[in-house]
């Protein structure tokens, strides 16, 4: 009792010959089906190569086209010949010319001999199949497909649509419950002959002839009628990409394939010399009696699909440049933007760095240069601080910075004195966390010893810029996390907002904030605002600061001391 292979070939015939010879030498009969579209010369060459083996036969040739009945017809011819000419064969294994056995034949034989009545065929009902490409699952069995999908895609699609619209349906024969699965199976003589010798075979064949991709459903469905021991899995490791195209194995997959403990893999790149010479070598170590375990390979290919379809969030590069809204993340990691904090506090950046461990930059969008942390002229990824380069593409500047510093939280200062073009991007980025103390831009003006007419002009301009920016951030489309405090409120109770900021960034070890940054002396700030008003300007973004002595009383020396909170 042994296993026989039906091998479907259409190209790389030299490799197919190598594998067929390998099986034949091990005493396993092989029936080869060669696509009729392969030239006579190539076919004769293959036949000559294998002429020395009396257990290799060539069956009737069909012209094979993907997705059509021809593939089933070819498998039928091969299987019929196998059953008729090699009576000792107990299991028939359907393989392709680009399959490669990964374990010694003896192991496969022993495995099958221990399971003499088991049919290994992936067979899943249409409701349970997640992997059909193109959305046709149940409809494969109920519509008609007279047009070639590969050559006449438009007609194919149009005819499917037409049938859907008209509600045209084929009747599924009574005894048939459609199942689908990998086209690479291993069936027992009993099941296979029952399928092929069934008195209703003509009826089955007539029905499946018009089903879409019948090689994934003909045997998979009919085996259910005759077998009472179906293992619904394929012994052949075969992975598909997101377009339904088989993944290909190369020399560098050698270790992976070896450790998979699968019996067979598909598809192998014909020039993968190391794979062929390793797995077809006669002294292939028979290390394991383990069950096939393709888990690791599954993960690698699942990752490839993920990369192709979703990509790496926040990455913009030569082969990934998402349209607006398709980025799966405009930047690759959360970051924080602080507005007004640098104006209100002394040494806010070192304080924040100390409290959170995050990287804290100055004003990255300052008019003259990007103020990287510690005065760097060039920063991670060789990003220069040059204003012209940054302003040439402000978005790329930020997404690059966040990408280049993956694994480390970035924070930076922003304000109405900075380049404003980035605001829109910040607002739309869910990774941005923006904290704003409105009106704090007035503090440097208040502290500067400048001509008051200049100060008034500057204040008017900054207020205008900031209010425009706030209007932008308050739009319904904003995805950033935005927190806004009028300066007066913030000054009143700074600890709570500061604590919430620290908590959000996530300090190295969660802890209570013990030290607040030092606030600038605001004595006289209320009067300063009043002076602006007196000059005809209306500073409203700061909130309510009482003018005159009252403010002075409020800004006791307490402000100048670091906070200590239990």
């Amino acid at each position: 009792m042994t296993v026989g292979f039906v091998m479907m070939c259409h190209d790389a015939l030299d490799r197919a010959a190598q594998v067929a010879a390998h099986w034949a030498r091990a005493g396993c009969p092989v029936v080869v089906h060669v696509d009729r579209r392969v030239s006579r010369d190539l076919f004769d060459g293959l036949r000559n190569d294998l002429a020395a083996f009396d257990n290799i036969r060539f069956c009737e040739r069909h012209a094979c086209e993907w997705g059509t009945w021809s593939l089933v017809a070819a498998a039928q011819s091969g299987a019929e010949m196998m059953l008729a000419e090699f009576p000792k064969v107990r299991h028939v294994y359907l393989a392709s010319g680009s399959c490669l056995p990964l374990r010694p034949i003896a192991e496969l034989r022993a495995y099958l001999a221990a399971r003499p009545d088991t049919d290994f065929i992936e067979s899943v009902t249409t409701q349970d199949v997640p992997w059909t490409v193109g959305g046709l699952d149940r409809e494969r069995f109920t519509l008609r497909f007279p047009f070639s999908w590969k050559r006449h895609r438009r007609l194919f699609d149009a005819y499917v649509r037409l049938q859907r619209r008209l509600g045209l349906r084929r009747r599924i024969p009574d005894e048939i419950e459609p199942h689908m699965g990998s086209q690479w199976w291993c069936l027992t003589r009993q099941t296979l002959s029952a399928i092929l010798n069934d008195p209703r075979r003509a009826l089955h064949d007539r029905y499946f002839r018009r089903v879409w991709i019948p090689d994934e459903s003909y045997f998979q469905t009919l085996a259910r009628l005759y077998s009472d021991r179906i293992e619904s899995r394929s012994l052949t490791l075969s992975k598909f990409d997101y377009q339904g195209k088989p993944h290909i194995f190369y020399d560098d997959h050698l270790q992976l394939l070896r450790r998979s403990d699968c019996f067979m893999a598909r598809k192998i790149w014909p020039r993968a010399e190391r794979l062929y010479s390793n797995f077809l070598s006669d002294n292939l170590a028979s290390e394991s009696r383990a069950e096939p375990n393709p888990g690791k390979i599954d993960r690698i290919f699942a990752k490839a699909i993920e990369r192709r379809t979703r990509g790496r969030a926040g990455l913009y590069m030569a082969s990934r440049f998402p349209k607006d809204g398709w980025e799966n993340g405009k930047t690759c990691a959360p970051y924080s933007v602080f507005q007004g904090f640098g104006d209100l506090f002394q040494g806010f950046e070192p304080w924040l760095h100390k409290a959170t461990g995050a990287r804290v930059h100055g004003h990255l969008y300052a008019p003259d240069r990007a103020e990287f942390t510690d005065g760097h002229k060039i920063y991670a990824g060789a990003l220069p601080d040059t204003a012209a380069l940054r302003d040439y593409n402000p978005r790329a500047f930020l997404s690059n910075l966040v990408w280049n510093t993956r694994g480390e939280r970035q924070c930076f200062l922003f304000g109405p004195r900075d380049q404003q073009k980035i605001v829109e991007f910040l607002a739309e980025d869910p990774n941005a966390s923006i904290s704003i103390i409105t009106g704090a831009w007035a503090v440097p003006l208040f502290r500067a010893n400048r001509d008051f007419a200049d100060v008034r002009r500057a204040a008017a301009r900054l207020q205008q810029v900031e209010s425009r920016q706030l209007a932008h951030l308050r739009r319904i489309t904003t995805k950033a996390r935005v927190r806004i405090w009028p300066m007066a409120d913030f000054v009143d109770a700074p600890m709570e907002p500061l604590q919430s900021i620290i908590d959000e960034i996530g300090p190295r070890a969660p802890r209570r904030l013990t030290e607040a940054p030092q606030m600038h002396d605001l004595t006289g700030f209320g009067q300063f605002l009043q002076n602006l008003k007196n000059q005809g300007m209306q500073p409203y973004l700061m909130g309510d600061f009482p003018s005159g002595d009252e403010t002075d009383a409020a800004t006791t020396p307490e402000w100048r001391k670091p906070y200590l909170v239990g």
Partner: protein
Amino acid sequence: MLWRAFRKRRELTPVQDRTAAIGSRDILLFSTLRNERVRLPYFLRYYREMGVGHFLLVDNGSDDGSREYLAEQGDVSLWHTTRSYRKARYGVDWMNRLLRVHGQGHWTLSVDVDEFFIYPFCDTRPIGALTDWLDASGVKSFGAMMLDMYPKGPLSAHRYHEGQNPIEIANWFDSGNYTITKNQTHGNLWIQGGPRARAFLAGKPAKAPALNKLPLVKWDRRYAYTSSTHMILPRGLNKVYDEDGGEKTSGILLHAKFLDTMGQKAEEEILRREHFANGAEYKAYHARLKAEDPDLWCKWSEKYINWRQLEILGLMSKGNWA
């Protein structure tokens, strides 16, 4: 485009035509060069090992022995011209001509002598594995960003020897300062940045050279490169990137221009006024090269290891190829 290539056909005189030896599935390399004798041995070796089947080269008036050297190589077909590189639109017309005549139906690699193509798994799979996979996927063009490589220290501090891998010297690069915009007319991405933008053209970022390239194309008579290998027609071939968030498979062209041989080269190019935008790029370099023998290296430069590193850094992608 095709008409231009046709008109330029007479500018090329065959020196050594071995194109009859090209096999139907050979991968072909096309290049134009001038006075690159010292770089040629390693260049040929690199691409032979990758699996290139035949080299189709245009020698634009070399006088350093490049022509004689190439004529001796069994897998090289060589044409010669002394016409203007600039008037042939920086060699594109010549390339299009050769591609049209000899490239039909082949995978073609169009690179300069200082460009080294890197693709996913290039250390374990020959280029034929990539092109077979692209064929199976129905993909006709393959994108690769040009990555400017530079040495640590002044250019003149390292001497390049014939036969040496230039990446041994110029083994540093900028990993994350590139900007991308989409060219709405031709559908290609326009990538700029890197050490040239950072060190030479910081004040004029718009003038920084384009780094997007399409070096690998399954050629068809109807195709034509329009601007170096940055763009190609028909425009569908430029879409080597995904716009729905996914990553397509892509490579890198390691650009080993910044060697000690460059100072001399730049001087020559200025005299010939044969480069882009009347050599705006070259003038900027030259000013720097002459004045201070620049060091492009900075503390954030990344040292080249292999393609996997470039993949992790996000400069290229395996995409769906595993």
